[in-house]
């Protein structure tokens, strides 16, 4: 027995060399992947690097490749230079004065959270009906929704603008939110998910005398939680980042969203002060980045659910 155990020492050196050759491709692959990932992440890195270095470093060569003189000065300055605005409360006379960048943040958060909440409610209701109920017109309406998925948003841009002009919704949040709410992807996604839920629970509840609304809130919603989370996350991302529609609707800087505000700062007199611009852009990006790390799992799931339709 000992004679068998002994010789293991010698071949182990040969093994390390073998191991080296075996691991080399793997190491090269990791290296290559790291390089590609660094290139992909570089714009984001450069955004934060510039935002966090003193303003003077954006007009010198070579640039600071890492934020050696860490400062929040750019953030303070861009907040101050965005100008003072008014957060209007219930009436025009009632307002809180604050820097516009804060206003843009509040406006964006309000529009995104409100739109997301409405979407989750309406889409899950419609998804439930399309998945579990047969009613006259259900097929026709569902096919219309599918067809609408193919139509690029630019087609409705001008008609919607003319509509909100007639409704006097230009330069209001209603004008941004209402047409923005018409998005059918969530209905589709939730219909697909709710279809897979077993019908027994609903039937049992119905036998027990539960109302239709009770079945929806008591059975369908809790069981659809993962799909609701995916719907909510993608809706929130979409509404936080949307640009063209609020750009067209909103005119007073106090009502801007972050994305519209950023493009406004970019075209203003200090729009070429890249330290400031990057600080503003970072403020718009940070919530989404935190959001992504918090809900990474759902982002990945949502992509796959979305792809199944294709």
């Amino acid at each position, binding site marked *: 027995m000992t004679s068998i155990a002994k010789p293991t020492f010698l071949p182990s050196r040969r093994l390390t060399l073998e191991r080296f050759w075996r691991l080399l491709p793997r190491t090269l*692959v990791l290296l290559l*992947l790291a390089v*590609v*990932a660094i*290139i*992909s*992440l570089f*714009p*984001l890195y*450069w955004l934060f690097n510039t935002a966090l270095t003193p303003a003077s470093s*954006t007009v*010198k060569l*070579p*640039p600071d490749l890492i934020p050696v003189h860490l400062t929040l000065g750019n953030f303070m300055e861009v907040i101050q230079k965005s100008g003072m605005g008014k957060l209007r409360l219930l009436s025009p006379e009632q307002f809180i004065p604050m820097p516009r960048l804060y206003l843009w943040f509040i406006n964006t958060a309000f529009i995104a959270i409100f739109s997301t909440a409405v979407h989750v*409610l*309406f889409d899950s*209701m419609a998804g*439930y*009906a399309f998945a579990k*109920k047969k*009613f*006259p017109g259900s097929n026709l*309406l569902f096919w*219309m*929704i599918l067809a*609408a998925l193919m*139509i*690029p948003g*630019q*087609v*409705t*841009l*001008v*008609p919607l*603008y*003319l*509509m909100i002009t007639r409704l006097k919704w230009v330069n209001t949040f209603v004008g941004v939110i*209402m047409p923005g709410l*018409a998005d*059918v992807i969530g209905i589709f996604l939730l219909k697909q998910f709710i279809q897979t839920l077993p019908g027994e629970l609903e039937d049992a509840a119905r036998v027990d005398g539960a109302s*239709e609304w009770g079945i*929806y809130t008591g059975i369908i919603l809790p069981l659809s939680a993962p799909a609701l989370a995916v719907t909510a996350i993608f809706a929130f991302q979409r509404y*936080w*980042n949307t*640009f*063209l529609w609020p750009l*067209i609707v909103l005119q007073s800087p106090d009502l801007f969203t972050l*994305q519209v505000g950023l*493009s406004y700062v*970019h075209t203003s007199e200090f729009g070429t002060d*890249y330290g400031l*611009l*990057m600080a503003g*852009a970072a403020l718009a*990006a940070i919530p*989404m*980045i935190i959001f*992504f790390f918090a809900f*990474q799992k759902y982002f990945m799931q949502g992509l796959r659910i979305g*792809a199944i339709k294709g």
Partner: protein
Amino acid sequence: MTATTATQLTLLQRLRKFWHRHKWSYFFIAPSMILFLVFIAYPVAQAFLLAFQKVDLRGSAWTGLTNFKDLFASDLFWLSMRHTFVYALFVVLAWITSSLVVASLIMPLSNRVQSVFRGAFYLPNVTSIVVIALVWIWIFEPDFGFFNYLLTVVGLPKVLWLQNPDIALWSIVLSTVLIVPGSGVVLYSAAMGSIPREYYEAAEVEGANSFQKLVAITFPLLKPTTLYLTVIYTIAGFQIFERVYIMTGGGPINATMTIVQLIYQTAFSDFNYGKASAEALILFAIIAAFSFVQFKFLSTDVEY
């Protein structure tokens, strides 16, 4: 007896029965459907009407095909078409290739390393294109931008990335293709993960190497994913707007004018709503045609 009463139901009774049976269904779909009809279906229908009218701030009048004729005779329209096609072509090719290569490379790694890479490649997709475009303006900045700094380090002359009309479009293409699309990486690696082990084992028994396995097993089985990604990336490519609007505004001298930028300018700088609708419908037709052709050519009945 029940049969006769059923046939003798009055219209009112039948309506009541119908309402009793379906009221909840209609209640559940009503909010979404009202939004859909008012803010999608009606505007789409209206876009078709607007495209055949002269609509501006003063009023509207029927003009038949004039908007389309004007567009087909306009150099700017064809220029914007060419730019959009060039952009879409390069972006689709680069994104499909890069996400396929990255997904193939991360496949053999452990689950934890895989998910770190997937996260890293997905992260740039969560921020808005406005933010990303602003960073690229800064990277492309002529005097102190990062790219020209790199060029001076290796001893090359500076480039006017966004100011030179011959280069600006390619700079915008570059800013897009340099970033590996996270969605492609995630979807390709999910699809690769669902290919049964036995296929590869069978190939190994026959003596196939890794590359042969990739070409003979993985790629054909990824065809549905490739089709899906090609379609969504083509659509995204044709709809390029924010990057152009922020980085160049379509300039210099229309060198980066794309279809959506043109629609935006026609509608909201020239206030020519009819013509803008015509442009939007042409974009719609192109996207529909491309999706159709891609489905025809790339669709496959491979199942596993």
